[in-house]
């Protein structure tokens, strides 16, 4: 199994918190798509296994008109051996119409990821989202009506304008529409974003940590009650509704990223495309490589393994550590030890985060990280 990720770096509006690679100048959509298609033909031998998942991310891929989407899929079809079980399209509620839904259906897109973020008007305004609350609700209703059973929405918590009641209401809407999959993210204040700037200048006062944690706890408890499984720190699924594409990332499967800023992984190295639309177009035109490569050392792979796996419900598997990274087995055991009990639950075969541990995932991760020049 292997995955293909296609980055569509365009958005109608810049959300205040967002540090993804995107452009709000839509002029070069055609040129970027054209370049992506060229890149597809060049990278056709990158993946050694059949492609089981395709993911259109962004930016806002729902901005693309159907013919462009179709042309990308056709190009993929002709250059890869496809055995797709899941084709996901990220969309913003304001792009969703019955017409588009029908067309996406026709193209074989079988999963939609809708950027809802909140069902409250004032949150959307504050975030500078391109849609309103009514569109958020409608997009879900319509998608379900159009037969998109496989649906996920993004929600954000942990920002200053979100009250406990409002969060509860958001989760109630989720329940009402029986949305099978959710990605719930804590608001992250990134530098070089509008929100980052507001924070620096004191215009925005971040939600106190204790309250953000209370919200996270509430989400975990409420979604558990609703029958979701928190199969990754930020991802919740009803039984059998996990995202295949993303799960593959966490299983260490290979993937090819296409488009400006996209990342790829072939098992031993990662590469990432230049995150600049114009430069990307130009390099493709000139037949130049658009990416930088990083060869992963054993240490790098060990670090990635513990980093990614700790976030998942399966946790870190002892046998895997022993087999894949025998040199670091003892190091891992020693360094995870202080967390066992309160933050990490140890079973026969694995180490998994406890409810408390999930709040300090990064701290635990960096504790078991191996860095050079360390005497162990």
């Amino acid at each position, binding site marked *: 199994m292997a995955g293909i990720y296609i980055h569509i770096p365009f958005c109608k509006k810049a959300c205040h918190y967002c540090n993804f690679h995107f452009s709000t100048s839509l002029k070069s959509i055609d040129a970027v798509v054209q370049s992506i298609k060229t890149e597809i033909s060049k990278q056709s031998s990158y993946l050694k296994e059949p492609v089981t998942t395709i993911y259109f991310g962004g930016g806002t891929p729902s901005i693309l008109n159907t013919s462009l989407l179709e042309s990308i899929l056709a190009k993929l079809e002709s250059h890869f051996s496809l055995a797709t079980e899941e084709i996901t399209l990220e969309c913003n509620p304001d792009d969703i119409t019955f017409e588009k839904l029908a067309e996406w259906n026709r193209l074989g897109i079988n999963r939609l990821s809708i950027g809802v973020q909140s069902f409250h008007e004032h949150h959307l305004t504050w975030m500078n989202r391109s849609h309103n609350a009514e569109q958020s609700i409608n997009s879900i209703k319509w998608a379900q009506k159009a037969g998109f059973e496989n649906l996920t929405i993004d929600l954000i918590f942990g920002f200053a304008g979100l009250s406990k009641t409002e969060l509860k209401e958001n989760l109630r809407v989720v329940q009402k529409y029986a949305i099978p999959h959710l990605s719930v993210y804590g608001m992250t204040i990134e530098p070089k974003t509008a929100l980052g700037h507001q924070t620096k200048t004191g215009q925005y006062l971040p939600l106190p940590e204790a309250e953000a944690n209370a919200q996270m706890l509430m989400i975990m408890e409420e979604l558990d009650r609703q029958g979701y499984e928190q199969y990754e720190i930020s991802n919740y699924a009803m039984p059998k509704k996990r995202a295949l594409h993303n799960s593959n990332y*966490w299983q260490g499967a290979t993937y090819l990223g296409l488009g400006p800023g996209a990342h790829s992984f072939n098992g031993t190295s990662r590469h990432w495309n230049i995150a600049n639309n114009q430069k990307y177009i130009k390099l493709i035109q000139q037949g130049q490589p658009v990416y930088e490569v990083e060869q992963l050392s054993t240490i790098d792979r060990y670090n990635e393994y513990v980093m*990614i796996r700790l976030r998942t419900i399966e946790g870190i598997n002892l046998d895997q550590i022993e087999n894949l990274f025998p040199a670091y087995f003892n190091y891992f055991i020693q360094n995870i030890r202080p967390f066992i009990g309160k933050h990490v639950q140890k079973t026969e075969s694995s180490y998994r985060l406890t409810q408390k541990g999930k709040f*300090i995932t*990064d*701290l635990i991760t*960096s504790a078991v990280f191996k860095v050079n020049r*360390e005497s162990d």
Partner: protein
Amino acid sequence: MHPMKNIRNFCVIAHIDHGKSTLSDRLLEMTSTISAREMQNQALDDMDLERERGITIKSHAIQIKYAHSDGETYTLNLIDTPGHVDFSYEVSRSIAACEGALLLVDASQGIQAQTISNLYLAIEHDLEIIPILNKVDMESAMIEDVSDQIVDLIGCDPEEILQASGKTGQGVQEILDAIVLRIPAPQGDPQAPLQALIFDSMFNPFRGVIAYFRIFNGTINTGDRVRFVNAGKEYEANEIGILKMKEEPCKSLGTGNVGYIITGIKESKEIKVGDTITHAERPCSKSIKGFEDVKPMVFAGIFPIDNEDYEDLRDSLEKLQLNDASLVFEPETSAALGFGFRCGFLGMLHLEIIQERLSREFDQEVITTIPNVSYYAHTTAGENFMIHTPNDLPDVSALNYVEEPYIEAQIITKPEYIGTIMNLCLDKRGVLTKQHYLTQDRVELTFDLPLAEIVFDFYDKLKSISRGYASFDYAPTEYRRSQLVKLDIKLNGESVDALSALVHKDKAYAFGRRICSRLKTLLPRQQFVIAIQAAVGAKIIARETISALRKDVTAKCYGGDISRKRKLLEKQKKGKKKMRQIGSVEVPQKAFLEVLKLE
């Protein structure tokens, strides 16, 4: 060889920034001792550090040939003096090598404490003083006021004060003439046994230690067998010579002259400033008076940031010691910081200079522990010994009493700052012993102060409360009985030896509180609560708590996030590696470096 009557030996007394270096350059330039092409600004300060700070740390000497209008050529030996409080002994030896001094005062700033104490030293040594108002071209120059100050201070005629500007070159000619006319020629007996004063030394990696001397009696020749009287050692004078921009070897140097000697000595410890050079065969009957074996006054631990750099640090300290004999060190081990050295310094500036030179010249970043002065401990068993580190303080039960060093501190300031400066010094356990108006606008305050109290904070505070209008100088006086306690800092119950300090009993509370609250801002939160405590013996006198870290989780970790996130966490982890583990608590290097800084 030049007749003695045509030699003039002089130094320049000036406060930092009063333009000594620039004016010295002008003297060299005008007499073609140095060509404009060779001219680096501030030719006499050849260490980077000195140039930047504008202070001469180690003195040098340079010979100037000057053709005076009387038709004769004179040899003018300019002997440079270090410009900081910590080096007062070295200053006194440079002064002892001269017959005259240029008193250089910035016309816009007036006289400062440092200038005054050095001036008194010069007057004590009967030097002829040539007062010079410098920077008279500046708009802010207060020529009359500052002239009055000078007249008050040395009792000269106003007409004797020269006016100059190092920047424009104004007055430089007059200065050269005044040196010839006013400063007496050296006296001494060329036939008497050799008697020369070492006023400075320097380490040269290729040639060993070079000693600078001034001959009071007799003659020295290359190849002579010489004895360093106080050190009690004999050597061969492999090379002697005079000091131009570079050393210039010569066969023989006579009474009144200034020169250098190379004997093959490899360690600067063997050459002591203030020592007397004489002949082994025909020694002088007594050494030149005023010799002192300078003892370090301030001690602190210096530790490598990375334990692996311990040997490198030792090498670097040894190299520094080669040209700075006043630096002493011995190995020290700390549970918190690993292997390092207990180092002794002349004072706080000396400590800072060493720290900076380690960083600049040897690329060694170090952690310096809380400095302390050296105390004298008397035990109940009747023993007495010096204490250089908190851990050496005997147990209360074994301790009879402790003595601590005192200083006489001179502060010159404007009258409006007397009140705040008094408060500062009182707070530092000081007693005002003298208040003296130099002019209407300049007052000199003399305090009796424990040296320990100026070890940290004092300069900075003095500067800030006086808005820079206070200058400071001190001289050690005596050891006196004191009430000393050892203050321990504990993290979750574990003592951090590197943060222990010796403090006066009355200061323990304030100091303990300050360290605790400072640490609170410097320690990162961890997954558990951290208790910071200050303790004297078993008694906790201050406490702070750092709450547990409760949230540290990245929102997204998909295909495109993996590399970035891994690197971010790796970086964090590397930062952690720079931390020291105290029990279960991780302490960043920064905490040790910054714990004493003012908020």
